[in-house]
């Protein structure tokens, strides 16, 4: 029986990069999954949580858990949103409700993590020949502990991956931080973009749309000739 995946597209992908959601569907289907999309889904609530409004975050967490309670696996093309669900949802609840929340948290995965670590399918039969500089987004790396999965998916597709200097340094997005402190956030993007330019790669990839939109809109503002894309989009383009 094929794995049943409930896709969580995240509010950012839904609104700013829906193509990434479609790529996630294609990758999961290429890996033999049956993908469903629960139309009741909205947002994981991280902006409220990180802004210091846990009660508001709890409201959205409750909604998320209601939507995905009976899913076999919840998969999202975002390390940050999954980290919110897996690492922080349980801290918002107590008692029997917490048990229910923990169950959903435990079966939520970031896309490449699910493909590689759960299904053991880094190779989806895609062929990519674009040289890619991979930026490991912070929450995927440090909260979910996913270091190799995105690289393995890119590698399996034949994409030459170049390493960034200070690769694990934050790009400066940081959710609400990016709008509350553009004066700090933008120079941080510049540092990351300069590192990308220095590799000679024309494409920078990551697994979080927040980071990608931040880097892409800064790159465009600076007139840099760079393509900023989600790993899922790069690989989906290489599918037959």
């Amino acid at each position: 029986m094929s794995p049943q995946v409930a896709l969580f597209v995240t509010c950012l992908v839904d609104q700013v990069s829906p193509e990434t959601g479609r790529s996630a569907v294609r990758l999961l289907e290429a890996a033999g999954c049956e993908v469903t999309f629960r139309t009741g889904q909205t947002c994981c609530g991280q902006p409220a949580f990180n802004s210091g409004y846990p009660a508001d975050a709890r409201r959205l967490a409750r909604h998320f858990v209601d939507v995905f309670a009976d899913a076999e696996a919840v998969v999202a093309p975002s390390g940050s949103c999954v980290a919110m669900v897996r690492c922080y949802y349980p801290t918002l609840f107590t008692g029997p409700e917490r048990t229910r929340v923990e169950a959903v948290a435990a079966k939520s995965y970031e896309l490449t993590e699910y493909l590689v670590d759960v299904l053991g399918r880094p190779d989806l039969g895609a062929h990519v020949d674009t040289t890619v500089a991979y930026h490991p987004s912070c929450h995927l790396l440090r909260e979910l502990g996913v270091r190799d999965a995105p690289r393995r998916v890119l590698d399996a597709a034949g994409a030459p991956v170049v390493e960034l200097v200070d690769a694990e340094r934050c790009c400066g997005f940081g959710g609400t931080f990016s709008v509350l402190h553009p004066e700090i956030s933008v120079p941080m993007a510049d540092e990351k973009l300069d590192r990308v330019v220095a590799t000679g790669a024309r494409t920078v990839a990551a697994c979080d749309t927040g980071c990608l939109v931040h880097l892409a809109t800064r790159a465009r503002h600076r007139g840099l000739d760079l393509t900023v894309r989600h790993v899922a989009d790069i690989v989906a383009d290489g599918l037959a």
Partner: protein
Amino acid sequence: MTTSGELAHHRHPGDPLPPLRDRVEATLHNVELRGALRVMATRFNDAREVAISAPGIAAMKERGTAIRAAGVQDLRANLARAEVSLRGLGVQVHHAGTGAEAAELIADLAEARGVRRAVKSKSMATEEIDLNYHLEQRGIHVVETDLGEWIIQKASERPSHIIAPAVHKTRPQITQLFSDLAGGDLPDEREELCAFAQQQLRGEFLTADLGISGANFVCADTGTIVLVTNEGNGRLTTSLPRVHVALVPVEKVLAHFADLATMVPLLIRHATGQQLTSYVTMIHGPRRDGELDGPDEVHVVFLDAGRTALLGTPFESMLRCIRCGACLNVCPVYGTIGGHAYGGVYPGPMGAVLTPLLSGLDEGSELPGATSLCGACSAVCPVGIPLADLLVELRAAVASHAPRRTRRAFFALWSRAWSSPVLYRWSARAANRARRWPRLARRLPVARAWGEGRDLPAPVPETFHDWWRRDRSAAR
């Protein structure tokens, strides 16, 4: 407009600060400073990475975390035991509830003993209580003897890093400063500059009647005061003058002398990336009969200043901090804005947590928000302080302490609206449509802030929700 020079200038606790944004922009305009920060971060980070990748260090980190967690949990008992041990060694023990009390106490103590000249080894706790200022007010001549501290004292500045206080200064700036002091040009060479400082400081050590230090650790069972230094100034400060005063924040107490076997190398490897500093000084009370060296009197002033109030709160883990500075070195925000922009004595992630906790949520309340929550600090911390989580916890504390009505209303409304799929989809479409008119969209506060240095994301033909409904639902 604030300049980075003004920002570097020494300030007393409670002095007014320009807004965070002005502080940040002052730093960003200083190209030399940003270069110095980058050099510093690379040097420290490379050295630390080598030092902590050695076999056994991961286990040492676990032991260190357990030692500090248990030590903090039993802080009051450890403090009481430390006091008994210290008194047993002939050390006079004092307690200060606030920074002002501590400064007053030390100044009184110095005055009562006829102290005219004091030398200091590096101590962030003395910065916290603005001790130099209080001593100078009493007519006492105070000299910093750590090279970095001496540099910034001579420049009337304040530390910008907890272990490398003059990291914001470049060598040409230091050459200029020293040349002015020497009254003639000094060569721009490390050895010459250090020799000049050493020659200036040697006389100060020999004429001082008071030596002031902090402490890296104090052992409760033995009363040992531990200092780790690289310049030997700590040893001279605590052994040459006739009186030694150690200002010790209460959380520096370790339960057991044996804990040092873990804590000293753990601290040093994370701080400078060395295996051991040039000097590890262990002090056991004043000079005894028959001994040649050492002060006549040793005093320990335990500083609380808001620390024990953190016990039993969600912020208790912050008291584990051993001031290694690793979180500053890995922090992309610290690396961008530098230490002075934080405004308080403690910069970087540990400062963004500690400043509002110790100074009250009115001071430094904007600091927890000025972080990207990347988690590099939590990952590097040798004693397992979940700094990023504490920053989020502090954001919540700030939000309820000084409610921002608009923001609170926004999240309350937003979370209710987005708990409804219908309202979510409607607002998603509306936001997408608004981006078709970027000039109008830019009038919205969030878009305006985003637009500072970034384009707005282009509108999309349809949201994923709409695509799925059109493409997939119809097909099935």
